[in-house]
């Protein structure tokens, strides 16, 4: 058996792929997908729009409008493919980079920008979109997802749960504990690991000596590796795993083999650690270009369509920018809001004192 933890552009052997980087449909013995041209065009549109939101956010950060931003560049197919496999009733638990999943769940991108701008810590209601809050502490949400799935299971609901995390996160105790719980309780949960090859500066070899999807077998459930830059394959594999979960067959670990094309966050400097040429090799596997090539190749879309999507992306980008700049700073007394469900005397006192303190400046300025 080969131990393959390579980051290179060569596709490792055990990878489910349905669409080549050149945009050619290929068959896989276990996975297939039947998409109408219209559905493929929709996926393409999603990919382009979330990339555009991401680009705009990176630009806004560079201009000092966001404190920091975690770019999804390169991971669009993994996110759109997996998220479009979800039913409305399925619940998703993200990390801090799942802007594409958020998009598919109908979360206004302004919430994400607001979080990174520092005006809120999220602020959306997870129940509105079946999309949980972003989680910054690495791996913590894996356990929440399993617990949620156990609740779904108890309720006899026809739903599954999906949890997103990175390759680095697989080292955390919480993620390993989540694997154990999911396995022994046969929880209806899909672990979706976006292996983008890096945890900040640390390559995959610093987390694992075996391909990540093979971890699952040691915990007693199936693991599968999918071409994370292939939106068809991500959709097909996730659909199947969610179906298995809903049908009572328990958890699956999906390793989406992909690449972080940008920096870890806008505060990171990848030139310090990234091997030259790696990025160039991965650019050839761009998740958007291959869908475009497929649509062209099969004459499912013409130039007008691509122009229209580009124009829509432009409009979306401008709108996101405008609304971001209009985001007001929170009121200082908001610090005390929503800390407890029940009234709290200590907080009420601190709030009152702080309000009086602030007022002393407004009145007392000479």
């Amino acid at each position, binding site marked *: 058996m080969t131990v393959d933890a390579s980051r290179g552009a060569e596709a490792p052997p055990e990878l489910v792929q349905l669409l080549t980087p050149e945009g050619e449909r290929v068959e896989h013995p276990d996975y297939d997908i039947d998409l109408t041209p219209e559905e493929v065009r929709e996926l393409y549109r999603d990919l382009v729009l979330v990339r555009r939101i991401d680009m705009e956010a990176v630009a806004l950060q560079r201009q000092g409008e966001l404190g920091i931003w975690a770019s999804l560049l390169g991971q669009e197919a993994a996110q759109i493919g997996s998220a479009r496999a979800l039913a409305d009733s399925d619940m998703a638990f993200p990390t801090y980079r799942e802007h594409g999943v958020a998009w598919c769940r109908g979360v206004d991108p302004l919430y994400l920008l607001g979080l*990174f701008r520092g005006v809120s*810590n999220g602020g959306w209601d997870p129940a509105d979109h079946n999309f949980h809050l972003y989680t910054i502490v690495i791996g913590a949400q894996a356990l929440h997802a399993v617990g949620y799935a156990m609740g779904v299971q108890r309720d006899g609901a026809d739903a599954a749960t999906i949890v997103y995390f990175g390759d680095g996160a697989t080292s955390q105790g919480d993620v390993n504990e989540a694997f154990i719980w999911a396995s022994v309780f046969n929880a209806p949960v899909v672990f979706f690991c976006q292996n983008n090859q890096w945890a900040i500066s640390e390559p995959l070899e610093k987390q694992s000596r075996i391909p990540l999807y093979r971890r699952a077998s040691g915990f007693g459930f199936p693991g599968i590796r999918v071409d994370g830059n292939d939106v068809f394959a991500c959709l097909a594999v996730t659909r199947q795993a969610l179906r298995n979960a809903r049908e009572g067959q328990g958890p699956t670990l999906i390793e989406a083999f992909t690449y972080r094309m940008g920096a870890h966050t806008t505060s990171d400097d990848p030139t310090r650690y990234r091997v030259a040429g790696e990025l160039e090799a991965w650019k050839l596997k761009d998740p958007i270009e291959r869908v475009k090539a497929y649509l062209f190749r099969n004459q499912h879309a013409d130039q007008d369509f691509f122009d229209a999507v580009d124009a829509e992306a432009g409009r979306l980008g401008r709108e996101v920018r405008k609304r971001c700049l209009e985001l007001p700073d929170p009121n200082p007394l*908001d610090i005390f809001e929503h800390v407890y469900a029940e009234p709290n005397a200590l907080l009420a006192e601190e709030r009152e004192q702080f309000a009086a303190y602030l007022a002393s400046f407004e009145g007392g300025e000479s």
Partner: protein
Amino acid sequence: MTTLTLAKALNEGLRKAMEDDPKVLIMGEDVGKLGGVFRVTDGLQKDFGESRVIDTPLAESGIIGTAIGLALRGYRPVCEIQFDGFVFPAADQIITQLAKMPLRSLGKVKLPVVVRIPCGGGIGAVEHHSESPEAYFTHTGGLRVVACSNPVDGYHMVQQAIRSDDPVVFFEPKRRYWDKAEVDKDAAPLPMGRGRVVRPGADVTVLTYGPMVKTCLEAANAVEGERSIEVVDLRSLSPLDTELVFDSVRRTGRCVVAHEAPMYNGLGAEIAARVTEACFYHLESPVLRVGGFSTPYPPSRLEDHYLPDLDRVLDAVDRTFAF
């Protein structure tokens, strides 16, 4: 004398400790090629190799737990926790194991492990990147807890922490990493367990540490001539240099404790209680505290309100004169 930022001073302190003792190891996430997210370990892996500067898997409990094992084997690991909010996955290892094993062995086991934690707010980060977790650790017997506030202390204290046979939780104020000062590497350093009067004064003592030392000095300077504020940098949070503290408060008769962490059940509460007990007949007014609110750290656009600034310190100072 060389002029160093706090980050660079810590870097040079670590380098010196590694040169002096081959048993010193550095371990943590991204400490190698990247040099740590704050570059405190910059260049160390290049010069000391991957077996002494270890990029660990992304697992804080693992970092501290394996450091304990390495220490049992005679090494002196210096663990970097990337950000304050990420020490909690390691809290079990620190609190239930690191702090207690020496006692359980009746002193036969020594655990010279240093846990470096960039702490506090003021850099505009997202949640979990601006915590002040010192009270959790000062509440645990068996740990030494120290906080540096300037490049001179950064350089010396990190070496002292590494030389200490006790486990040390070492706080570094991240918003002060880029502050510069002249560092005399040859001058005899103050022992790690001692506090220091960083600005003498006659009317009121302000006790503080870490990131707030600079803020309190600014407050003292701002009212120079009107009020004479003595600023004490506690440096050692556990054990506390009570002698220095009591001596200062007995001279000035007034006391304010300032920190970034929430006031409720914070270090300030402990210090205020002790000062009240020991200096009761010297006090002109109650000991007052300045700190964060009893809420989670707010989104960064509000941190200027959450973090005590010069005005909040002066407000408390004024109140001690109003009694």
